[in-house]
C-alpha cells in the first residue's frame, strides 16, 4: 500500500511529461510542417471557411439556431490560423482538451489500461490537418460534447432524481450550443449509466432524450427539418455531404465521434467474461519466463515509461507522416504565394508538383513578373489551358483566374470571378480585399466602401481596410495610389456582352486601350504560341517596338524560325536579329528530328526532351504529348 502510494506521484509525473512532450511535438509539427496559414488561405480546396466579423449583429445571427454558438466560436478561433503559430496553438489546445476529456471518461469507467486511447483523438486530428481538410467546427462540437460529459460526470449527484434533472438541464443547454453533437453526449452518458453505473433508468432516459431533445428543441422550437435537427454539426450533416470538397477526411471525423462510445462498449463486453473468469478461478502468479520478463518490465517504471513513450511517438509519427498529402500542400503553397505575389517561391515550389495546371498557371504569372515569360515559359510543361484555365475542368477555378484578370486589367471578368468565388467560398477576407480593390480601380467608391466596411470588421484585415477607407475619404479619386492608377490606365474600356471568355478578343481590346500593357502583350503572344497560331503571333511582332526588350525574346525567336520554315517566307524583324544560339538550337533540334524520322512520336519526344525540352521547337512538335495533368 505504502509502495503504491509512493509510486503514484511519479507515475502521474511521468504521464504528464509524456503528454507535455507529445503536445509540444504536436504543436511544432502543426506550426512548422503543416502550416495553418495554408488552411486559412484554403485556395479553392477548403470550401467551408467560416467567416467571422466583429460586432453584435454578426453574433446575433448565431443565436437563432442550435449549434450557432459552436459555429461562432469556431469561426472566431479559426481566424487565428491566419498567424501560423497562433493557429497551431488553437488546434493544440483543442486536441489537449479532447485528450483530457477522453482520459477523464476512461478513468470514470475504470479503464486504466486503456488510458493510452486518449492520444488517439489528437493523432486523428493531426491526420485531418496533415491532409489539409477543414473540420474545425465539427471537432469543436465534439469537444463541446466531451466537456459536457466531463461536467455531467463531475456534477453527478447521488440522488437519482437530481441526476436526471442535471442531465436534462445539460442536455437542453448542450443541444442549443452544439446541436447534433449532443447525440455523442447522450450516447456516452447512456453507456456510462447502463454499463458502468448500472443505473438503467438513467441510461434509458439518456437514450430516450437522444431521440426527443433534438426533435423538440431542434425541429419544433427552432424549426429545423428533422435531418438537420439530428445531424447539424455532426460529420453526417448534409452540409458536409452535399459538397464533394467537404467530404475529404470525414471518415476520420466519424472515427473521432465513435471512438469513445465504442471503446467503452468494447471494454464492457471484454470485462463481463473476464469478471466471470475471476469469480471461477483465482489468479496465481505465473512462473513462465515471458511472465517473469513482463513482471520485471512493469516493475521498472522508468523503462516502462521510456518504452511506452517511444511507442507513442513512433506510432504517431508513422501515422502522421504516412498521411501527408504533399501534392495538395504544394498546391496550397503555390496558391498562397501567388496571392501574396511571392514569385521566386512559386518557381521553387513548382518542382514539387509539376503536373498541375493550377501551378503552371501561377508559374506563368511568376515568369511574367520576373521578366522570363517570353523567354523561359517552355521550361515548364505548358498547355493552352494553363494560361487562363480556360478548359471546362477548371470552370470553378474562379479565385485563380481572378488574379490574372486583375493583373491584366480585365476588371469586370475579375469581379465576376470573385463574386462567384465568394458565393462558393463565402465572404473570405482575401476575396473581399480583391473585390474592394477592383471597385476602387473601377472608381465605384460606394461598392468599395461596403467591401471595406465588411473587411474592417474582420480580425486581421481591418487595418488594410481602414487605411483605404481613410484614403477614399480624403482623396475619392485615389490619385496618389500608384497601383490603382496604373490599373486604371490598363483597364479595358470596350464594352460588349459575352458569356464565354475569349482570350484573344480581350487581350486585343486591352492593347487597344493601352498599347503599353506589357502583360496583355506577353499573354497574347503566349496564347498564340500555346495554341500554335503562328500567323497571329507574327502579326503582333510589331508590338515589340512598344516595349524595351533588349532583343527578340528567346521563345519568340524559336517561333519565328518555325513560322519561316513552315511558310517559306521571311518575317520582317525591323532590323532585329535572331541570335546565333537560337539558330544552333534549331539546327540541333532539326538534326535529332531527322535522325529519328520514322520512329514513333513518343520515342522521338523522349530522345529530344533532355536537350530541347525547354524550347518552343519541342512544345510545337510534342507539346500535345506531354501536357496531361
Amino acid at each position, binding site marked *: 500500500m505504502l509502495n503504491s502510494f509512493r509510486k503514484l506521484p511519479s507515475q502521474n509525473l511521468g504521464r504528464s511529461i509524456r503528454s507535455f512532450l507529445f503536445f509540444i511535438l504536436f504543436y511544432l509539427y502543426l506550426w512548422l510542417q503543416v502550416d495553418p496559414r495554408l488552411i486559412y488561405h484554403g485556395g479553392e480546396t477548403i470550401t467551408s471557411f467560416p467567416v467571422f466579423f466583429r460586432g453584435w449583429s454578426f453574433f446575433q445571427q448565431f443565436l437563432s439556431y442550435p449549434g450557432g454558438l459552436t459555429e461562432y466560436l469556431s469561426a472566431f478561433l479559426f481566424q487565428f490560423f491566419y498567424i501560423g503559430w497562433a493557429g497551431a496553438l488553437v488546434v493544440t489546445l483543442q486536441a489537449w482538451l479532447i485528450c483530457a476529456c477522453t482520459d477523464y471518461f476512461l478513468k470514470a469507467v475504470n479503464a486504466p489500461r486503456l488510458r493510452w486511447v486518449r492520444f488517439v483523438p489528437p493523432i486523428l486530428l493531426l491526420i485531418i490537418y496533415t491532409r489539409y481538410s477543414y473540420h474545425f467546427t465539427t471537432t469543436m462540437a465534439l469537444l463541446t460534447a466531451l466537456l459536457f460529459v466531463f461536467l455531467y460526470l463531475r456534477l453527478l449527484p447521488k440522488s437519482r432524481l437530481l441526476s436526471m434533472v442535471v442531465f436534462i438541464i445539460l442536455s437542453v443547454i448542450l443541444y442549443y450550443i452544439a446541436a447534433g453533437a449532443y447525440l455523442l453526449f447522450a450516447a456516452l452518458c447512456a453507456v456510462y449509466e447502463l454499463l458502468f453505473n448500472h443505473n438503467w433508468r438513467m441510461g434509458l432516459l439518456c437514450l430516450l432524450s437522444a431521440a426527443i431533445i433534438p426533435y423538440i428543441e431542434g425541429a419544433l422550437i427552432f424549426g429545423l427539418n428533422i435531418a438537420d435537427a439530428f445531424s447539424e454539426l455532426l460529420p453526417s450533416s448534409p452540409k458536409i455531404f452535399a459538397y464533394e470538397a467537404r467530404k475529404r477526411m470525414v471518415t476520420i471525423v466519424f472515427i473521432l465521434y465513435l471512438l469513445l462510445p465504442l471503446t467503452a462498449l468494447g471494454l464492457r463486453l471484454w470485462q463481463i467474461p473476464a469478471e466471470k473468469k475471476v469469480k471461477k478461478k483465482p489468479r496465481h502468479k505465473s512462473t513462465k519466463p515471458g511472465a517473469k520478463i513482463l513482471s520485471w518490465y512493469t516493475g521498472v517504471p522508468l523503462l516502462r515509461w521510456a518504452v511506452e513513450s517511444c511507442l507513442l511517438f513512433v506510432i504517431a509519427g508513422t501515422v502522421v507522416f504516412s498521411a501527408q498529402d504533399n501534392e495538395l500542400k504544394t498546391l496550397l503553397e503555390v496558391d498562397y504565394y501567388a496571392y501574396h505575389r511571392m514569385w521566386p517561391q512559386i518557381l521553387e515550389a513548382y518542382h514539387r508538383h509539376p503536373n498541375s495546371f493550377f501551378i503552371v498557371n501561377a508559374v506563368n504569372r511568376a515568369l511574367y513578373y520576373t521578366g522570363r515569360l517570353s523567354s523561359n515559359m517552355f521550361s515548364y510543361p505548358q498547355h493552352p489551358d494553363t494560361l487562363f484555365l480556360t478548359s471546362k475542368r477548371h470552370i470553378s477555378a474562379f479565385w485563380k483566374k481572378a488574379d490574372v484578370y486583375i493583373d491584366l486589367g480585365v476588371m469586370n471578368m475579375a469581379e465576376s470571378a470573385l*463574386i462567384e468565388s465568394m458565393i462558393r467560398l463565402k465572404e473570405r477576407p482575401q476575396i473581399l480585399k480583391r473585390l474592394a480593390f477592383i471597385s476602387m480601380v473601377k472608381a465605384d467608391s460606394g461598392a468599395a466602401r*461596403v467591401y471595406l466596411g465588411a473587411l474592417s*470588421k474582420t480580425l486581421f484585415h481591418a487595418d488594410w481596410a481602414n487605411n483605404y477607407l481613410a484614403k477614399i475619404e480624403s482623396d475619392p479619386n485615389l490619385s496618389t495610389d500608384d497601383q490603382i492608377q496604373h490599373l486604371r490606365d490598363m483597364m479595358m474600356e470596350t464594352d460588349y456582352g459575352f458569356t464565354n471568355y475569349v482570350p484573344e478578343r480581350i487581350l486585343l481590346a486591352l492593347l487597344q486601350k493601352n498599347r503599353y500593357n506589357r502583360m496583355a502583350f506577353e499573354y497574347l503572344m503566349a496564347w498564340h504560341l500555346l495554341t500554335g497560331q503562328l500567323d497571329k503571333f507574327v502579326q503582333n511582332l510589331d508590338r515589340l517596338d512598344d516595349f524595351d526588350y533588349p532583343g527578340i525574346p528567346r521563345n519568340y525567336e524559336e517561333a519565328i524560325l518555325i513560322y519561316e520554315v513552315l511558310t517559306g517566307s521571311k518575317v520582317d524583324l525591323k532590323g532585329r536579329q535572331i541570335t546565333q544560339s537560337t539558330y544552333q538550337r534549331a539546327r540541333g533540334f532539326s538534326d535529332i528530328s531527322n535522325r529519328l524520322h520514322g520512329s514513333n512520336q513518343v520515342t522521338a519526344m523522349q530522345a529530344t526532351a533532355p536537350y530541347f525540352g525547354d524550347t518552343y521547337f519541342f512544345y510545337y512538335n510534342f507539346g500535345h504529348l506531354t501536357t496531361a495533368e
Partner: protein
Amino acid sequence: MKRHYYLFWLCAIVMSLATLSYFFLHPSIPIIDEYISVNKMPVIRPDYTDTVIPPNIAPLNFVVKEQGMQYYLKIHSAKGNNIDVFSKTGRIEIPIGQWRKLLNINRGSKIYFDIYTKDKISRWVRLKTITNSIANEDIDSYLVYRKILPVHSNWSQMGIYQRNLENFDESTILDNRFHGGICLNCHTFYNNRPDKMLIGIRSKKYGSSALLVEDRTVNKIGTKFTYVSWHPTGRLAAYSSNKVHQFFHSARNEVRDVIDMDSILLYYLVDSKTVKTSPNISKKQRLETYPTWSPDGRYLYFCSAPMLWSDRNNVPPERYDEVKYDLLRISYDLKSDKWGELETVLSTKDTGLSILEPRISPDGRWLLFCMCSYGSFPIHHQDSDLYLMDLSAQHTGQFEYRRLQINSNQSESWHSWSSNSRWIVFSSRRRNGLFTRSYLSYVDKAGKVYKPILLPQKDPLFYDSCLKTYSVPELVTKPVQVTGEKLARVIRSSRKIPTRLPITMATPKAGVIPEPWEERE
C-alpha cells in the same frame, strides 16, 4: 457550500460588469444651457432629411457626420414629450417606445431633429434643425424581400425575409441554407395580404415550381412561375414564364446583364387548378412579361417586345441591346373567361426606352413603372428610372406620365405599393452601383412622390458593411404566418398540382418536360 460560494462571486462579478457597462454605454443626458448656433445643416447618414415619414415606422437611427467630441439630439414635434439622445460617437439610436409615441400623436405634423455637437474646447454647437413631416397614413407594417449576395451565375446563400417596419425585427420566411441550395424567385401577394401568396422556386433537385400559400395551406404547382400578378378576386393569377439568360459586360460598370430569350404570359385558375393562355398574350414573335392587373380586374397590363432573333440559344443574341418593351393592356372578363383586344398604353416609339415592371396603385389611379435603355431587367441598368402614369388623365388616347424626381443616377427598379396607395417601396442602388437597397417614399393624393428614406436599421452603419442585396421588396399588411419548415417540406415533397400547359403544337423531346415557349414552338 463551496459551489454556492463560487456562484455568489460569479453573480457579483457579472452584475458589476453589467452595471459598469450600462453606465459606460448609456451616459447621462447633459444639460445644455449654453450653446452657439451655426447656420449649417448637419450631415447625417442615412439621409433622413426634408422628407415625409410613415407614422408607424421604426426609429430612423443615423450617424452624425460632423466633427465633435460628443453629440446630442433633441427630437420634438407639436405634441408630446421631446426625445433626447446623447452619443459619444455620433451614432444616434432613438428609443423605440418614445419614438413611436411621438410619431403617433403627431400624424400630419412636422417633426424636428435638433443636433448639437461638442467641439474641442467643450463648447456645444447647435446646427440647423432638420425638419421632416409625419404622414397621416400608415405604411403597411411588413416588408418582404429577398436577401442574396450579388449573384452572377451561382447562388448558395439566399432567403426570403420579412421585416416588421414598425421595429427592427426580421424573420425568415424561407432560407435556402437548409434546403439544398434552391433558387427562390419572386414572391407575390394577393392585395398586400400575406395569407395568399405565390413563391417561384427553381431547383435542380426538386424541379421548377411555384408554392401556392392559402392561409396556412401550402401546395406546389408543378410549373415555373416567373413574374406573377393576382387578379383582385384572388381566383386567378396571371404569370409570365421566361427563358431567362444571364451574360456579362466586358467593361460596363455593372458586370451582369439578363435577357429573356423568350417569354410568354399564362394564367392559373385557382379553383380548377388549370393553366391557360390566350393568343394575344402569347404571340410567337413577341416577348410578353411583367403582367399586372388593374385593381378592378378588367384589364391585364403587361410589357411586350418584338423578338429580334431567330436563334434562341445564342446568348447574348445579336441586337440584344435594341430590345425595347411596350406597355400594353388587354381586357378580361372573369365570368366568361374571355380576353379582349390588345391596346398600347405606352409605346417605346414615344419614349425611346424599354418600359418595364408596371404596378398599379390599389386605388387604381397611378401606374408606376421603370424605363431603361433596353432589355427587361432594369436592376442591371444604371439608367433605369421610375416613372408615374396617371391612369385617370387620358388625353388624345394617351395617358400622362412623368419621370419621378426621386430617381438617382444609379438603377431604380422593383417597386410595390402599400395597400392604401400612399406609400411605395422600391429598389435602388443609389448608395453604390452594386448593392441594392430598399427605399420608402410617400405618394400624396396628387401623385407627388416625396424624397425616399432608406429602410431603417437598428445599427445606423448597417449598410456600410452589408454584403447582401435586398431585392423584390413587397409591402404586406401582416406577417406571413406559414413557417419556413412547412414551405421547405412542400418543396421537398413529390406531391404537386399537375399542370397541363395549354399550348401543345409540337411533340416535346422524350423524357423532357418542355418549357412553355418550347410547347409554343
